[in-house]
């Protein structure tokens, strides 16, 4: 283990980690929006759209991100759809994440008993008020563990974006192994940077889960 190699490579890995984080964060926000939309379509049972959403969820959940990215990056340009690497990575991550987020939101909404809404309305609340103060907090508390698990899952999934020529952490590490043969140093940095990215999120998720639960059930 050569520590001078490690210290001199840290800036390169830092930059790569920022790329991983940027793609992850944009992808996760977009996934959450797509997921919310899909969950709404399914909860309100909107005809036609509901079937489309169901097909999308099955396609997205039953194929690997790697294959989705190959199709987006190498396949689609053949019909004139050319996207820059980063757009491809974010679209791919959103295509994958949207369905996972949709399932999480839906399980939250489904778990709130209809009596809750009826009682709130009977107490004189308007539907939006009931949604905001009665339905949403309960649904979110149920969905929270699945949502945070999805956040971690999606950041981990970004590890394959090097196949669309993005210099993320894996790309940088592979480069260092290939050109300098600093295998152990590169892998140590790779592991350390992923821990740095994901450990705080994992701990934060545990904390959020406990907090949301105690808010919802008052225990």
């Amino acid at each position: 283990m050569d520590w001078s190699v490690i210290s001199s490579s840290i800036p390169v890995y830092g930059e790569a980690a920022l790329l991983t984080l940027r793609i992850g964060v944009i992808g996760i926000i977009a996934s959450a929006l797509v997921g919310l939309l899909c969950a709404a379509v399914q909860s309100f049972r909107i005809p036609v759209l509901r079937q489309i959403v169901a097909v999308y969820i099955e396609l997205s959940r039953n194929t690997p991100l790697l294959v989705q990215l190959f199709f987006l990056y190498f396949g689609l340009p053949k019909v004139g759809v050319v996207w820059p690497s980063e757009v491809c990575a974010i679209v791919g991550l959103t295509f994958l994440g949207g369905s996972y987020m949709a399932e999480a939101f839906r399980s939250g909404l489904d778990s709130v008993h209809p009596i809750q809404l009826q009682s709130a309305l009977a107490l004189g609340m308007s539907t939006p008020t009931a949604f905001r103060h009665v339905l949403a907090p309960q649904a979110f508390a149920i969905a929270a563990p699945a949502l945070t698990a999805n956040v971690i899952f999606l950041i981990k999934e970004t590890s394959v974006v090097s196949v669309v020529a993005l210099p993320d952490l894996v790309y940088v590490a592979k480069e260092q192994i290939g050109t300098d043969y600093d295998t152990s140093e590169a892998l140590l940095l790779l592991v350390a940077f992923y821990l740095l990215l994901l450990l705080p999120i994992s701990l934060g998720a545990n904390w959020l889960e406990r907090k949301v639960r105690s808010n919802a059930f008052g225990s």
Partner: protein
Amino acid sequence: MPSDLELIFQGSNLGRLLGGLWVSVWIALVSMGASVVLGLPFGVVMTSKNRLVKLLCRCYLEFVRIMPQLVLLFLVFFDLTKVAGLNLSGEFAAVVVFTIWGTAEMGDLVRGSITSIPRHQFETARALGMSPAQVQRHVILPLAVRQLLPQTVNLTTRMIKTTSLVVLIGVVEVLKVAQQIIDANRFQYPSAALWIYGVVFFLYFIVCFPISWLSRRLEARWQIS
């Protein structure tokens, strides 16, 4: 342009693609089998009350879960080979990594299904005069299996999707074969990439969809209400 789809049916192209798919499915099935065998006892160990045992299990589980599977693959494929002076094939490294990952996931499922069984199930069965062994055999085990089986089936689809990563450590599987077919026919079939990668996408779907469907059916059927 749609004529480029016919490339799939030329020569042995479709057969080669299916052969490539079989490589990653085979890696997934072997790793899954090993994960079940190792994960069952690991899950039981995880329910231990011993603090040190608990801590060690927790560290293993968290590390394996936090690291992207690709990083774990790199660790074994590049580092273990260099440090230990081994010459592992990509397939073998993949089976090792996915077994390490699968055992952690499987162990956690087993732990979850054991701890989710309410204590009163055990106590009621005892009160009815069953021996502890009979309680395990006729009450606890069936309850645990009903919860565990759908989740295990679901883990299998995750395993199959994850094994697509092996192309990145040089294993020739379906994506690599697809690449070879596209490159070899670059001039006759310029838009082959669209169709061939499209076919790979649907091949994965055809393999994984029935398994996830089965998992959902089992879960719905055995839900403890």
